[in-house]
């Protein structure tokens, strides 16, 4: 690949107040690529996504999206640039219907955008949502909520979709179903950066992966290589 | 106002300053005209009220918007006892303080279970409700028409204290309030309050019986406000439910504490003295615009020193950071 990547992160440091969580993180995502970030709890995976979408400031290093720097840009603007973030815990608007949640997902395209076409596209990806359009999201199962959250992220036709802890608290069969959609999303042109704890699942769908450990990139490479690497298990269980 | 350990070497210093200020208070009295004496008396009363709010709102972190209930209750207990039962003021004063404290414990038990602003507004509801009850118990309280405390002649259970008398009364009461808060701040109880203010779960995990401690703080704050109300009722002679339970009095307590520095001993004193003197000065010199200017000052102070003046100065002395924009950077969206 000769052109510059869609997302390029180099030497990124970030944290909360005086507390630094990420140390010198390097990472790239190319157009239409599906990349996984795995690592044990507290490794800084969510913090990385939060820094990229502007929720917390980048204290050192750089992150560029389509060549434009992300440091110091507000959350709203970054969302407007086509970088969608499906946050940990889904963070749907609990009192609203699925349809309203999805409509809000397409906010960046203004009154004209987020039309029926986008809706149709995400409903095709997640047909289970079609019958739920009028249902209030708070009353749905965790799996349906996660589908709705991913669909909401896609409504803005983003160039990069970042999903945080997709499998958290969900039954394996649901996880498999949602993860199974990700390659198609990537193939249709939206790159996906997936953060998850389910190593096997995440690396099965993703082409490449990064393993974070205590705020550093401990390992990175092709999914197949990582799956075979004993270092992954060491990062999680602390023993070989 | 240094930390307990650091001050242990010079522990006598704050006490010495306190005694000096008290003495200066007596000395000042001889230098004042009657009008000025009344103004300073009002300032001293607000020192008591601000410290009352400081205990529950500042130290414990439960912002009571109904604190005037204790003031009004104290005033009415004194008024009714002196008017209906011809009890001497000093008995009525004690009864007012105790009843206000008891009332604090009574309403504190259910109310202090509520968090944050729910507690604040429930307390407001209690204050407004108390006023309405007082207004409607006409046979006991005189109702909306108010009551008159007998002060002169054979009718009076205690002779009127006069300007000088009330000055001394409120000076001593203010000293008592400041002393109370100082002792609380340094005691085990004060540590409990501050722990509850910061994190109730963490406090409980360290053995602080949170409900008991909160209720005690509310009750003690009620005592202070009740005593102030009692003295105020005697001084005012004619009392009415509206002014005795005026929500503006509560708001003034909050403003004084927050602007001065909540959860400190000195902050509320500075807040009360500064704001009340400023208010009186504006009233005298800019009669028409006085509340407008006061409002402007509050707006500016809140934006620049949301943590209070004492906290700002202390932070500045400690870190050398005096930027006025720090809090804006922290709290803006």
């Amino acid at each position, binding site marked *: 690949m000769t052109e510059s990547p869609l997302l390029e992160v180099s030497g990124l440091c970030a944290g909360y107040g005086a507390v630094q969580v990420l140390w010198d993180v390097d990472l790239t995502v190319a157009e239409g690529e599906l990349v996984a970030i795995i690592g044990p709890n507290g490794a800084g995976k969510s913090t990385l996504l939060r820094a990229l979408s502007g929720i917390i400031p980048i204290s050192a290093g750089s992150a560029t999206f389509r060549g434009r720097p992300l440091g110091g840009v507000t959350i709203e603007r970054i969302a407007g640039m086509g970088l969608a973030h499906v946050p940990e815990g889904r963070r749907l608007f609990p009192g609203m219907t699925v349809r309203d949640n999805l409509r809000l997902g397409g906010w960046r395209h203004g009154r004209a955008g987020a039309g029926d076409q986008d809706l149709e596209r995400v409903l095709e990806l997640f047909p289970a949502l079609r019958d739920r359009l009028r249902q209030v999201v708070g009353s749905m199962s965790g799996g349906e909520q996660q589908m709705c959250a991913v669909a909401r992220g896609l409504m803005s036709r983003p160039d990069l979709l970042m999903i945080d802890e997709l499998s958290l608290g969900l039954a394996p069969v649901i996880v498999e179903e949602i993860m199974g959609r990700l390659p198609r999303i990537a193939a249709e042109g939206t790159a996906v950066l997936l953060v998850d704890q389910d190593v096997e699942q995440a690396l099965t769908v993703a082409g490449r992966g990064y393993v974070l450990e*205590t705020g550093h990139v401990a390992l990175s490479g092709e999914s197949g290589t990582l799956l075979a690497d004993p270092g992954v298990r060491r990062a999680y269980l602390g023993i070989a | 106002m240094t930390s307990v350990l650091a001050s242990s070497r010079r522990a006598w210093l704050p006490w010495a300053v306190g005694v000096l200020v008290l003495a200066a208070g007596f000395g000042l009295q001889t230098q004042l005209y009657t009008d000025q004496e009344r103004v300073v008396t009002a300032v001293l009363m607000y020192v008591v009220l601000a410290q009352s709010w400081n205990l529950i709102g500042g130290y414990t972190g439960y912002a009571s918007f109904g604190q005037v209930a204790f003031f009004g209750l104290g005033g009415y207990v004194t008024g009714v006892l002196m008017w209906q039962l011809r009890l001497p003021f000093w008995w009525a004063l004690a009864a007012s303080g105790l009843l206000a404290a008891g009332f604090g414990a009574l309403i504190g038990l259910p109310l202090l279970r509520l968090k944050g602003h729910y507690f604040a507004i429930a307390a407001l509801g209690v204050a407004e409700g108390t006023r309405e009850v007082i207004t409607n118990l006409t046979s006991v309280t005189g109702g909306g028409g108010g009551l008159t405390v007998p002060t002169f002649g054979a009718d009076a259970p205690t002779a009127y204290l006069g300007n000088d008398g009330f000055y001394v009364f409120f000076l001593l009461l203010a000293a008592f309030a400041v002393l109370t808060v100082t002792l609380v701040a340094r005691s085990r109880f004060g540590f409990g309050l501050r722990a509850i203010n910061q*994190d109730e779960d963490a406090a409980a995990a360290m053995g602080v019986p949170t409900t008991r401690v909160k209720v005690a703080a509310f009750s003690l704050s009620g005592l202070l406000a009740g005593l102030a109300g009692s003295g105020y009722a005697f001084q005012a002679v004619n009392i009415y439910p509206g002014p005795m339970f005026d929500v503006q009095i509560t708001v003034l307590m909050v403003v004084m504490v927050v602007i001065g520095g909540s959860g400190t001993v000195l902050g509320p004193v500075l807040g009360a003295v500064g704001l009340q003197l400023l208010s009186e000065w504006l009233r005298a010199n800019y009669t028409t615009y006085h509340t407008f200017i006061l409002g402007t000052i509050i707006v500016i102070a809140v934006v620049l020193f949301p943590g209070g003046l004492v906290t700002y100065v202390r932070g500045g002395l400690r870190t050398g950071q005096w930027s006025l924009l720090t809090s804006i950077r922290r709290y803006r969206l």
Partner: protein
Amino acid sequence: MSGAADTETPVLEVRGLGRRFGGLHAVADLSFSVPPGQVVGVIGPNGAGKSTFVNLVTGHLKPTSGQVLLEGQDITGEPPWKVARARVARTFQIVKPLRGMTVRENVAVGLLYGPDASRHSGAALRLADEVLERVGLVALGDVTPGELTVADARRLELAKALALRPKLLLLDEVMAGLRPGEIEPSLELIRSLSADGMTVLVIEHVMRAIVAVSDRVLVLHQGRLLTDGPPREVLADPRVIEAYLGHRYGRTHGADTDREQPRD
């Protein structure tokens, strides 16, 4: 470290402990006991119910079923402050320093209100230094918690717990977010507390810490007890690997573990 006879009254015993949130069983039918002086690791993937379990023991949550016994005494549903005064101390997963107070004052609260309540704040502040000494924080006594590093904030959390001079110490992820070099001193401290006879439950994600310090490991999964045994055995259990790394990882890689095990 362990060596506790089975006949001894367990320091902690839970019987059929459960807690529902709406339809979700955060903790279900949990039963086990811990003899005095043991260091027990409690592990499990995110959402396994570890923190809920701690909250049920300390009274921060009321169980919907079951009992908690402390040295044979039923303490189920007692308020947290009473549990604390019974010498059960805990740390919080998300540290809960008292931000408006100095580090020394933080610790003094526990000394003033804990089981050995001292009446005077001055005395408590002096005693606080002894506790801070133990966790290596004495030099920072006058600092407010906001200025502490992650590691020091975790130490403060520990110091607040130790101020109660506990019999039973529940450590809820005291090592999360620490850099590898910062973990060893914490482990050393846990060992020394155990040597003093304290019973310690270590709830942790950092596996190498669990392995290094525990006499025994409990694995929670979806609110239930998955396994209970010596650390190495537990971590080699395919079910545990599956719970952590995903449902297929356990199947494909579980076999390797059996081969590697004899190395130790």
